């Protein structure tokens, strides 16, 4: 790992957006996440890396309570978003997810038009008061997702008709449209070709200016390219967490080093 860009990247000390303390996750009898502490900074891209089944996606899904939809899943510990415990009884996961958006591994546009895909979030959350306002949100979101120029003439065409990379950018636009504060991305490029991946990565870097972005990735190069901070998970444990440059050039834990150099994983 001697990508020179790493060292040039500026890492400002931002406010903490999400802080997790002592998080345990159980799937039935399986202990999937063991005692994870992590602080996610605002306006920063944080990458979760680690071998398959290490719990990084599971942990990501805890952050917007997507695990609630799985019956056997149980979460313990304390996760705070801007100081509010998101597992508090009074918190409605629906409100939480409007603040913490998510983009998934496989592009999953709804079988609706491009416009309706993007407008879905603002509509269900009632974010706009008029059609004109909604139009504006849709355009803004599609521009942010760098998709506007490609689709502006066919907003009523079905979203499923786009190419893979376009579909994933549409899903990002859809997530951005609700104006979230945190954006969770679960291997957003794993189903895309290299050109589409480059476009999405570029986009992630731009999104950083507005949101805290957390990305789960299998590709260490990708983590190195897009993130400022990296967390390495192994067998449900958070092994190491720090500046991306430091993790890749000078890991403190031997397991991290083994993974980065390709000996485990």
């Amino acid at each position, binding site marked *: 790992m001697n990508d020179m860009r790493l060292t040039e990247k500026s890492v400002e000390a931002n406010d903490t957006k999400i802080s997790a303390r002592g998080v345990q996750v159980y799937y039935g009898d399986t202990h999937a996440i063991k005692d994870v502490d992590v602080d996610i900074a605002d306006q920063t891209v944080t990458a979760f890396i680690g071998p398959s089944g290490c719990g990084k996606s599971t942990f990501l899904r805890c952050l*917007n309570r*997507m695990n609630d*939809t799985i*019956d056997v899943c149980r979460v313990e510990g304390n996760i705070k978003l801007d100081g509010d415990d998101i597992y508090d009884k009074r918190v409605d*996961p*629906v*409100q*939480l*997810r*409007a603040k913490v*958006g*998510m*983009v*998934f591994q*496989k592009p*999953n*546009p*709804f*079988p*609706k038009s491009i416009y309706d895909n993007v407008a*879905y*979030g603002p509509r*269900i*959350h009632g974010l706009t008061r008029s059609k004109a306002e909604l139009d504006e949100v849709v355009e803004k979101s599609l521009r942010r997702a760098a998709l506007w120029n490609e689709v502006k003439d066919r907003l009523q065409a079905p979203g499923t008709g786009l190419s893979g990379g376009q579909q994933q950018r549409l*899903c990002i636009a*859809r*997530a951005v449209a*609700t104006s979230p504060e945190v954006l*969770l991305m679960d291997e957003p490029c794993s189903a895309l070709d290299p050109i589409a991946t480059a476009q999405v990565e570029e986009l992630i870097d731009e999104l950083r200016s507005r949101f805290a972005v957390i990305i789960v990735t299998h590709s260490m190069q990708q983590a190195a390219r897009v993130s400022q901070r990296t967390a390495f998970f192994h067998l449900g444990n958070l092994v190491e967490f720090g500046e991306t440059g430091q993790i890749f050039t000078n890991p403190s834990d031997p397991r991290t080093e083994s993974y980065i150099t390709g000996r485990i994983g």
Partner: protein
Amino acid sequence: MTFGVLLLIIVAIAAAGYVLGRQRARNASGGDTRRLHSLTGYHGQSVMLFSAVPALLLLGLWLLLQPMLIENRVAGMIQPGDIPEGGSAELVMSDVRRVADGLDLVVAQGALNESDLAAMRADLTNVRSRLAEVGVAVGSEISPNVFQAAKEYRRLDTRFGTAMTIAVIAVALAGFALSLRRITPEYRARNVSEGFVLTLFIASSLVAILTTFGIVASLLVESVHFFQLYPAKDFFLSLTWNPQFRGGSDLGIWPLLWGTLYVSFVALLFAVPVGLMSAIYLSEYASKRLRSLAKPAIEILAGIPTIVYGLFALVTVGPFLRDYFAQPMGLGSSSSSVMTAGLVMGIMLIPFVSSLSDDIINAVPQSLRDGSYGLGATQSETVRQVILPAALPGIVGAILLAASRAIGETMIVVMGAGAAAKLDINPFEAMTTITVKIVSQLTGDTEFASPETLVAFALGMCLFVFTLGLNIVALYVVRKYREQYE
């Protein structure tokens, strides 16, 4: 010789063929069965198949054709004068058959012997009273020609019967002997008997085509008869249904079609929301425990025969609706009504709609649900705005299939909807459907060749075309839908 004995003889020949075929193969091998091309069992099997199958086919074919042949021969003996006013040749032929059966009975009971019978003449003896003695009732006096025809019928029947017995046994024995002679050590008995079995398999799969052909042919032929007797224009355009015993009937399909569609509409109006909502609840919300209890419970409804629903409509739902809804609201006093039949049919369709929708909803990929939840949608928003639109083509297909079920359903409407053909809007009024009229016209007392009976075939034709069309569209829609997510 009776049918059963003949069947037993064929089975016996086939069994003997199996045993002898094996034995002959063993002998041909000179004691070392390894010299044979095929196992001894296959030699036995080929003899068995060649003895039994052609003979059984002949037997079946003969039984099918014999009545037609005899009737053709006998029909020539009936003079136009024998046909009573307003009757038809077919009616006289059925008299001939009945007299012939009666004579069989008379002889069987020993009241007459064959030679007496041969000498008996209808103009000298009172045949009708003789038949009545053995419990065979004949509608009218028996004319000499009919009596002679009946005697000829009996004679031919016996002769054909004997001929059949001989022919069938001969074919069985011929197959037996020929295939037994072919056994040599080199004989490829396995290939031959496997080829034979494969041919039987192919023939079996043709039964489906034959059935469809039989349905279309029987509907078409009698419908054409009907339209020769009754103008097609009136059938398709007349707004009244009023069959008369003595001709001059109005046989317009519209009141029946209206009743059919009205009842089906009420049924779907009940079944679609209930079925769809329970499918949604069971697949999206319900706990495993509830699902494992409620799903089979609802599916039991699908296993209950329609006659049970019919009785439920007749005994429970009909009187209930009449006493608590129709009469207090002044909408009529009939316990059989569109509402009764529709509601009960709706219950019958619930499991149909719900299990089809369940499959379809489960075919919607989980990633779409995740996408929606990830944006902060509630479960019901996800169902209504993402899952249902995605599943819509499939659900439309399911509803079309349910509609085709409803249109073709018979017993519930026979027992619940009533028999009066009406174009009415009041759902508490008794109305009737195509299927009800098919049953009543074909089980009534009118003679077969009259338009009042034959209309049932034209109705059947419409029903068949209707349901077939719905099914083809529905299956096409569902298949397209499934391809979308595969």
